[in-house]
């Protein structure tokens, strides 16, 4: 009897203590959150990338408004402070320093990689979880354990676009045309490397400056060198110009590139003939969904902001909801939030599931799209190898 009673007593005590500890901890952690819970966001709201930054801001803000309208997190509302990074890294650093002065619990930042590169050291020093949409593959390779990315990156696109072009569309003489900024030039290098692995040599490699309005010389070079397709990487505004000028020059080649090709802002400025038949691989866009809830969400976002929701809107919207779930479980302890982000596994967002890898990349599912006239169609999701 005696040994049993001691054992029972010890186990019982342990169970009671653990239960009490856990019960107190989970309750105390949420209760310890400040009210409102401060979140920071730096994104480009002015300058030549303002559209992308605005679409990202819309996603985060829409989610915060929804969460607050539904009672916040354990009764505490979220307070999102947004600062404009403008178009320069120095301004992005200023914006981040200003955000850091507000001591936010979590910081969301730009999809523009040089801005994130400029900010990473400050945020890492502040030991604040840092969630970005920046697309340069190297962003998460900086060695910051506080940095996470919730959008697909150009390293994934650079592998998947050539593979789809060569193996599924059977095109073996592509011309490459990219915007000469961090996004385009980074992608161009990756695409060339991926084509080499597929034993395909691009017939022409061209680029244009972000402010260029006439890309006919590059397009004619690609055509004259006998290309059977164009791999195009750019922002919606310049991709629109390229596709319009292809129509004007009578160049009829298969075009495949990033999601700018199927972005609503691009398609709004193209005719059905100019847009038709072009392919894109990239972050998931809501307009191609068959789910009425998602289509309704996209409509509500458009109605509220007068700007279509894009892949960044979805990504930043998901990010805020992911944080909500984490704060509900881990409370407002920054290292606990960071650890929870690093342990993310199959968290279901609006269009994809998120899973953290060793670098802090959480998005590994991309969409393959094709324009049917001015309407993008989802041909199917495609996953990064290993996921």
């Amino acid at each position, binding site marked *: 009897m005696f040994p049993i009673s001691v054992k029972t007593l010890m186990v019982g005590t342990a169970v009671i203590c653990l239960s009490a500890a856990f019960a107190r901890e989970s309750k105390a952690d949420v209760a310890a959150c400040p009210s409102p819970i401060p979140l920071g966001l730096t994104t480009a709201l002015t300058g030549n990338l303002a559209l992308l930054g605005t679409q990202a801001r819309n996603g985060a803000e829409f989610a915060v408004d929804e969460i607050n309208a539904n009672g916040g997190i354990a009764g505490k509302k979220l307070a999102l402070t947004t600062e*404009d990074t403008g178009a320069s*890294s120095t301004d992005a650093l*200023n914006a981040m320093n200003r955000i850091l*002065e507000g001591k936010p619990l979590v910081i969301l930042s730009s999809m523009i990689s*040089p801005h994130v590169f*400029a900010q990473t050291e400050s945020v890492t020093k502040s030991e604040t979880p840092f969630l970005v949409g920046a697309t340069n593959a190297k962003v998460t390779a900086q060695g910051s354990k506080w940095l996470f990315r919730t959008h697909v990156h150009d390293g994934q696109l650079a592998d998947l676009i050539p593979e789809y072009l060569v193996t599924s569309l059977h095109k073996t003489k592509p011309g490459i045309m990219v915007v000469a900024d*961090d996004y385009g030039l980074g992608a161009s*290098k990756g695409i060339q490397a991926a084509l080499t692995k597929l034993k395909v040599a691009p017939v022409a490699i061209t680029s244009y400056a972000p402010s260029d309005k006439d890309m006919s010389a590059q397009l004619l070079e690609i055509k004259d060198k006998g290309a059977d397709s164009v791999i195009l990487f750019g922002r919606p505004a310049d991709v629109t110009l390229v596709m319009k000028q292809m129509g004007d020059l009578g160049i009829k080649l298969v075009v495949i590139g990033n999601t700018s090709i199927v972005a609503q802002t691009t398609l709004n400025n193209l005719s059905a003939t100019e847009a038709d038949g072009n392919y894109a691989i990239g972050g998931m866009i809501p307009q191609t969904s068959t789910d009425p809830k998602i289509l309704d969400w996209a409509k509500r976002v458009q109605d509220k902001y007068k700007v279509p929701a894009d892949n960044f809107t979805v990504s930043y919207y998901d990010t805020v909801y992911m944080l909500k779930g984490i704060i509900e479980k881990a409370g407002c302890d920054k290292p606990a939030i960071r650890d929870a982000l690093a342990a993310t596994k199959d968290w279901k967002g609006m269009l994809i599931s998120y899973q953290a890898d060793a670098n802090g990349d959480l998005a590994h599912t991309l969409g393959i799209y094709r324009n049917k006239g001015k309407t993008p169609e989802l041909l199917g999701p495609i996953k990064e190898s290993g996921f």
Partner: protein
Amino acid sequence: MKSRIPLALCAAVVLLIPVATHDGYVIQLLNIAILNAIVVLGLNFATGWTGQINFGQAAFYGLGAYTTAIATKAGLPWIVTPFLSVIIVMAASLVLGLPTLRLRTYYLAMTTIGFGEIVRLIIVHWEPVTGGTSGLRAIPGISVFGFGPQGQIQHYYLLVAALALAALIAARIRQSSLGRAMIATKDSEIAAEQSGVDTTRTKLLAFMIGAVYAGLAGCLYASSIRFISPDSFSGIQAVLLMTMLIVGGMGSITGCIIGAVALTILPEALRFLGQWYLVLYGLGVIAVIVLAPGGLASIASLIPRRAGAR
């Protein structure tokens, strides 16, 4: 003696700012404003005093920053980098200045815009060395034989000292025969030549001294911010530097500093207006240009004159 009182007061305020505020954001902003002031002081040699429109100053700023970043990341001691930066920008300004400074007005402006674009394209496309559009990060900080400023406040005092030295040298040059030759060249090249001034040499020297200022500011920028990318030295930055000079007061050392500080801080101070801040910022710049053509520095001199007229 009376003229030294405001200067002493200004110096006291400048030195006490970090004591009054421990706000890292404010100090960082002031550090950037000081660096801009040094670059604008450099621009003042060619544009303010010699009358040459120069949109290449941002490119020289970038050359200094990239030289420092590349050299220190390659393992060279920091103390070498100011000299390296000066050599590089002097060589670049000589190469640009020798064939082009015979050009006047808009033609020279166009050439310097072209130079800025060439530098930007080299930085963007020479990725293995410059990091391309991603820029260069984790740049080693300022260190002289193991000693260097730690934190933003120490950087602030170092940069204030650098600005004071830059302003002092500019003032001495202005008082020298070279300074007088610059002003003469600006007033009338033909008259200056008739008076024995070698205007081409004067313009070239003004251009090179300005480039050295920008190069050294770039060196300090790279080592204190510790991240550089091409967008910080673009054509937009060149226009901003020119605006700082005009708004502050072309030809005035105080004006250069006031213009740089005002136009660095103003957009940040107006951030509470959201996306409208650019509208107000633009209106503010227009207001200064229209109401005080001599720049912000001239406003102080206008006040007593108006008071006396009453």
